[in-house]
């Protein structure tokens, strides 16, 4: 399978830098965003296999960013990053459309596994859409 393309969204510059560096060593192609606004701009221009999204961010928080991301593309695979004692926030985010959550500090092995699962889901969704389009074309042609 091709390298998964990931967008990492976190307002902590140092955390963003070190985690993105690790994710690249672990075989992912990583873009980063410092806030919700930047995340939305990048998500509009590129298709990501997974978006890792911190919930606690200034101005546009993680939940609002999640909602807006899903308005751009409902099939986006968003994995939220939560702090301790905010697992409830992670569960709530999943009710709103996030596909998974992981507690900070995120174990890289777990994160990598979740990203790969997200990539597979994205691929399946793409294949389903392609099948639908092909079936549609064939129906129109009377085949």
């Amino acid at each position, binding site marked *: 399978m091709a390298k998964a393309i990931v967008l990492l969204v976190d307002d*902590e510059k*140092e*955390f963003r830098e*070190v*985690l993105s*560096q*690790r994710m690249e*060593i*672990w075989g992912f192609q990583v873009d980063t965003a410092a806030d919700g606004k930047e995340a939305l701009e990048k998500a509009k221009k590129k298709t990501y296999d997974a978006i890792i999204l911190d919930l*606690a*961010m*200034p*101005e546009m*928080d993680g939940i609002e960013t999640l909602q807006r991301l899903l308005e751009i593309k409902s099939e986006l695979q968003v994995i939220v990053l939560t*702090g*301790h*004692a905010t697992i409830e926030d992670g569960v709530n985010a999943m009710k709103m459309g996030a596909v998974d959550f992981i507690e*900070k*500090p*995120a174990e*890289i092995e777990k994160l990598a596994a979740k990203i790969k699962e997200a990539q597979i889901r994205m691929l399946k969704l793409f294949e389903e859409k392609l099948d639908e389009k092909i079936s549609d074309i064939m129906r129109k042609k009377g085949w």
Partner: protein
Amino acid sequence: MTADKSDEREQKLRESSLAFFGAITASVSHELNNVISIIDQTAGLLGDLLAGVKYGRPLSEEQLERIAEKVKNQTGRGVRFIKRLNTFAHSADEPVREFEFNQLVENLTALTDRLAVLKGVSLQVRYTDQPLKLVNSPFLFQQALFLIIKNLLARSEKNDTITVSVSVQDNGGKVEIVAPAKDSAEPEYPENLELLIESLEGSLKVGSDPEKICYEILIPGIKYQ
């Protein structure tokens, strides 16, 4: 005041103080979690790079220096948060004691800064030229200051500035907290603020004009300037 009213007052103060303590510790624990996350990931990065050495990818001195620097910076950041939290926690040791007014305002506003940053609001503080020592309740004073800042943050928008100014008065210390006005409605008194000011034997003034809202607290108990 009847015994019932006095009990009710004490109960309200206790609940309010617990909520305040919880809000500050939750905010600091969030910051510390960020610090630990960075250190944890940096340690993990070192492990990843060392694993690469086995496969012929050498680790440079520059990389090691950068990693060491990152850990050192974050540790320093964590220590600063812990010191502030420690100062805050000890402010509850005694109901009444001597404290330095500027230091207390500085510590509380630093602990509250994250809440301002989350809203995109700037919290600016101006201090007195000389130290100002008071004998009063440091914990209740911080609680009153926090309630006002929290109330103003709730009304604030991105790029607003909340200014906290400390000054000496004849009989105590004064703190003025000013924020831009958002509407013509009268600024409200945050819940339990009047109770706190009463417990401090202080006074509170709230004023507004079309441009700004101003809360002014006067805390008595000046020891010496």
